[in-house]
């Protein structure tokens, strides 16, 4: 099944993407409204929340170039030292740019 990219076809494809994405935005909350929030469930979702971040970042580091690895490690070190997000992010991005400029 394919959509031909005529004017109407593109609009249809965009509509499909919008609906699928909307389903992901609504779905988790909708499903949770049928779950009783026990301490165990609460603990599950809290641990899961920060694990989402780790599960995005770690494969990003492993699949990235030297610049990506530099950015993430410098961000981590700066964040652990200063506990301030903005300097940590800025330092990370700058080091990616620097590493890519040099190598």
């Amino acid at each position: 099944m394919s959509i031909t990219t005529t004017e109407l076809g593109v609009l249809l494809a965009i509509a499909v993407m919008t609906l699928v994405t909307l389903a992901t935005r609504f779905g988790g909350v909708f499903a949770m409204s049928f779950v009783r929030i026990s301490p165990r469930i609460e603990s599950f979702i809290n641990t899961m929340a920060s694990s989402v971040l780790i599960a995005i970042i770690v494969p990003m580091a492993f699949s990235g170039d030297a610049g990506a690895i530099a950015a993430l490690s410098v961000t981590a070190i700066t964040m652990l030292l200063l506990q301030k997000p903005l300097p940590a992010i800025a330092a990370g991005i700058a080091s990616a740019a620097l590493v890519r400029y040099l190598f």
Partner: protein
Amino acid sequence: MPNHSYPYQLQSQKVRAEFVRLFPISLFVVAFGGAFGLAAIQAGLAPLQAILMSTTVFAGASQFAALELWGGEVPLLPLIAVVFAINSRHLLMGASLYPMLKDVAPGKRYGLLLLLTDANWAVSAQDYQNGRRNLEVILGGGLVLWLAWIFGTWLGVYFGGLLQNPKSLGLDMVLGCFLLAMALGGKKSPRVLVAWAVAAAASLAAWKWLPSNTHVVTGALAGGLIGYFWLDRKPVGPGTEEAEST
């Protein structure tokens, strides 16, 4: 649950403050949007179509992935599968906000979720870990990120040549660095660190061996299982290292 009192009241002043708070990161989102706009034109979308997509889909990674499928025809099932897989993290992100969202009337609740995206969710989730209930950032922060994404797409569509190589400036790493800073800014207990190690291992395993774009959900669920079996309030956790979804 038929609980008809919704105690969480969004404060408009705080919504505005969160709009301003995420303004710096949204400048980077403009750059990403620019990259998307340019890529969309190159893939054959008309300018208004690219802007429409950014306005209604508002999920960058999945939009880039959709462009890979673009041509004279767009295969429907792969399009649905890729967009769903990449955006399935929203399911977990939304679920993690449920303890706060259940205190908001359903109309507003789903209205807020229209603006749910990585950056504003990360702030809200970390605030919640640190004992602050902050749904205002979903609205205020989401709004500034959404506008930045649309504006960036518009720039890229019409002036894409200006920013040929955002990678050389490190701009592709903004979101990764932001999310990492959010993760490290939260509270770290032994339980959380074990969960992170499991999440990291599971996401890497999924990235290597499972179908593409399943690694975020796999890793997050594996980390969540640690929380499920190891509760914070108990003095000593029964160290459960079994991550079934690896």
